């Protein structure tokens, strides 16, 4: 296997670093004097600058240097952390992404504008320095001249992560008179060396008036994972000039705090945990998923062949392979799953920015962040969710004065939550704003020609109009929404994921948009059925039960298309008629009852063949607009079976029911 491209690895790591910096900045907005957060942001910026320079991203390194300097001043207590400064660095951080993605682009004007903003934020910060920040550097006041013995080895990946050991040694020299001796005893032979790792350690003797904290500060970026021993060997008190120049301290070994056993154990555990994780490019997972899909199809063919064979050995092997391929498929599915936390985390920044832009006070609450979804779903849902959250904030939430007048708290609330039910994950965006104005929605839809004036619509249909192309109720086009594009794209994206959108809204109380998305897009458990001569797959997660429909019942129900199911009427669709098979019905047809949420519909089929591991293949462009099917799959005998689009069929069944009820 070839080594990964270091530039590509750097880009990935820098992107993660930027996320950490962003998260730290957002945390800081809640507690501006949190020294740990300030240090963490500073460390992140420093590492980004260092590794950027190392990998040739000079513009990124130079730009980041300014932000790092600003945070260094905050860290040292020279300037306070303010909301203005945090916002300026957040904006600068977006620019760092651009410098990372297109290092050779023309970024000068933007860099200059952002640095100007940063400069103003730093120098305009006239408020008093937060006590915790100001006090820290003073806590260990400089004493007399001391001699220190510092022995250290850096984290093995320090150089690869952008730390320049020579820079650390230079910083040490800046502290005072220094003798530095490198120890190469642990450097392995060339063939065993990973040359980006570092195996050199150092033994330093330093005479300085600076306190121990200043020595520790040299290692602030690598402190967590390194081995560091700082020993005060001798001390000279400036006031006591009559005393001997150097007073030996009886083996007063001062070991850095991080070497305490408990902390060390935690570090060991952290290192072990990090060693257990392997970074794999997403496309390799996709390739592997394709291979597993092909394996499942081949296994299905084998099962079919073995089923007709008399060879017991072949049957046994076939069953074993079926079991193994099922396990492999399940493992593969788990590998592709990611917690929605990775999706939700980006909304903290969005809400922070929107709050500043709109002047609205907003509280973002996230729930169910550990819910896991297929990686592709996460990737594709990002933009739709951004649009929905923007919409909630821009259209839904009121200005503080409006909210207070309406008897609500000044701060609006947006709740982003996820939970799993069966084979679906439901992601909801809920706000406590003014709710959707139905009159305005209707008026706008009529004016845009989306519906006829005075058209009869259910409440849900009326609300769903906001997802129609070209629909917008915003009276002014804002930076956030109101361009009349987006909500229809949201719907298309969700439907492309085989998902649905439900919407509910109460005037004055807020709105809830719920996205129901299948957990996976690659392989599903399906129920294989026959209708006429063709085979079809119904996603098993949607199947509630199967019933027999005798010829008599079938005849009796003609014209009504309802079955009675435990005292409730369920509409059903005859797939033979829907697909125009032109074949006579089997004497004992079956009804497969499927559901999405609370809506149910029965599908009349000729035969239920059984469960089937369904590798989903997308439909050809020619068939892309056929609503009834969401995809296709290849069966064991090589023939193609179409996968029924449950959402569409349930909606069709419900529509049929509504028409029949209306007709009396």
């Amino acid at each position, binding site marked *: 296997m070839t080594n990964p491209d270091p530039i590509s690895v750097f880009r990935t790591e820098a992107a993660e670093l930027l996320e950490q910096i962003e998260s730290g900045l957002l945390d800081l907005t809640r507690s501006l004097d949190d020294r740990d957060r300030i240090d963490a942001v500073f460390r992140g910026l420093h590492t980004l600058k260092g590794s950027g320079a190392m990998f040739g991203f000079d513009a990124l390194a130079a730009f980041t240097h300014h932000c790092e300097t600003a945070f260094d001043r905050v860290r040292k207590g020279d300037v306070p952390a303010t909301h203005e400064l945090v916002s300026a660095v957040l904006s600068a951080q977006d620019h760092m992404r651009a410098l990372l993605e297109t290092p050779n682009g023309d970024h000068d004007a933007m860099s200059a504008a952002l640095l100007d903003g940063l400069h103003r934020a730093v120098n305009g910060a006239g408020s008093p320095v937060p006590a915790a920040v100001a006090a820290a550097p003073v806590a260990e006041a400089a004493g007399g001249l001391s001699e220190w013995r510092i022995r250290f080895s850096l984290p093995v990946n320090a150089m690869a992560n952008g730390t320049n050991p020579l820079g650390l040694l230079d910083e040490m020299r800046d502290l005072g008179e220094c003798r530095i001796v490198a120890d*190469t005893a642990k450097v392995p032979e060339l*063939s065993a060396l990973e040359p980006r790792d570092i195996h050199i350690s*150092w033994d330093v003797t330093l005479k300085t008036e600076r306190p121990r904290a200043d020595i520790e500060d040299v290692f602030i970026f690598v402190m967590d994972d390194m081995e560091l021993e700082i020993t005060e060997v001798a001390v000279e008190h400036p006031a006591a000039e009559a005393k001997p120049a150097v007073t030996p301290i009886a083996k007063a070994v001062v070991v850095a705090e991080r070497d305490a056993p408990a902390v060390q154990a935690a570090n060991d555990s952290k290192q072990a945990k990090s060693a257990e994780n392997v970074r794999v490019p997403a496309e390799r997972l996709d390739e592997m998923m394709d291979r597993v899909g092909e394996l499942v199809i081949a296994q299905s063919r084998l099962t079919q062949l073995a089923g007709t064979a008399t060879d017991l050995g072949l049957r046994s092997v076939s069953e074993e392979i079926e079991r193994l391929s099922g396990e492999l498929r399940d493992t593969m599915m788990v590998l592709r799953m990611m917690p929605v936390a990775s999706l939700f985390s980006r909304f903290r920044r969005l809400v922070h920015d929107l709050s500043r832009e709109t002047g609205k006070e907003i509280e973002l609450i996230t729930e169910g962040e550990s819910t896991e979804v297929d990686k592709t779903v996460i990737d594709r849902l990002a933009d739709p969710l951004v649009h929905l959250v923007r919409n909630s904030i821009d259209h839904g939430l009121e200005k503080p004065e409006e909210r207070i007048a309406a008897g609500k708290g000044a701060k609006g609330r947006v709740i982003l939550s996820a939970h799993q039910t069966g084979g679906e994950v439901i992601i909801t965006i809920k706000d406590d704003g003014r709710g959707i104005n139905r009159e305005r929605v209707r008026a706008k839809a009529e004016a845009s020609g989306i519906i006829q004036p005075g058209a009869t619509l259910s409440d849900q249909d009326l609300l769903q109009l906001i997802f129609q192309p070209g629909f917008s109720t915003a009276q002014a086009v804002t930076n956030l929404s109101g361009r009349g594009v987006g909500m229809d794209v949201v719907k298309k994206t969700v439907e492309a994921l085989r998902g649905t959108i439900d919407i509910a809204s109460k005037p004055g109380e807020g709105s809830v948009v719920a996205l129901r998305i299948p957990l996976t897009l690659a392989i599903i458990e399906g129920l294989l059925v026959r209708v006429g001569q063709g085979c079809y797959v119904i996603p098993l997660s949607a199947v509630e039960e199967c019933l027999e429909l005798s010829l008599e019942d079938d005849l009796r129900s003609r014209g009504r298309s309802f079955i009675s199911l435990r005292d409730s009427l369920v509409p059903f669709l005859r797939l033979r008629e829907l697909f125009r098979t032109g074949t006579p019905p089997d004497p004992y047809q079956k009804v497969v009852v499927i559901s999405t949420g609370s809506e149910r519909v029965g599908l009349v089929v000729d035969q239920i063949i059984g469960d089937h591991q369904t590798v989903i293949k997308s439909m050809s462009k020619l068939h892309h607009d056929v609503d009834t099917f969401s995809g296709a799959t290849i069966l064991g005998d090589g023939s193609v079976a179409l996968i029924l689009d449950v959402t569409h069929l349930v909606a069709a069944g419900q529509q049929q029911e509504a028409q029949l009820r209306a007709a009396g």
Partner: protein
Amino acid sequence: MSSTLSGDASLTLPATLTIKTILSVQELILDFLNKNPAIVLDIDEAAQVDLSFVQLVTAARKQAEARAGRVLLARPASGDLYDVLERGGFLDGMTPGAAHFWLHQEKN
């Protein structure tokens, strides 16, 4: 004074000897060392060098010595290489063997 012998195979190294290129430099030296037990590294005075290269050369010396071979420098460390040795703490407390290798100083 040169420490090389006429039988030593000389390897001219590229101008960038930093962490950016260190993997390919390792391959180059390793390949050369596998073919020749005694090698001389020819490092341009203007070459860009960082600590990863000093570590690499140290590892190469260890490997050669373990196999009764040797690694030498074509000329005493200068330019960036000397700077890294100095800043990295390789000159303070340098052993006679190391001083002979890096700076071509006579062993006493």
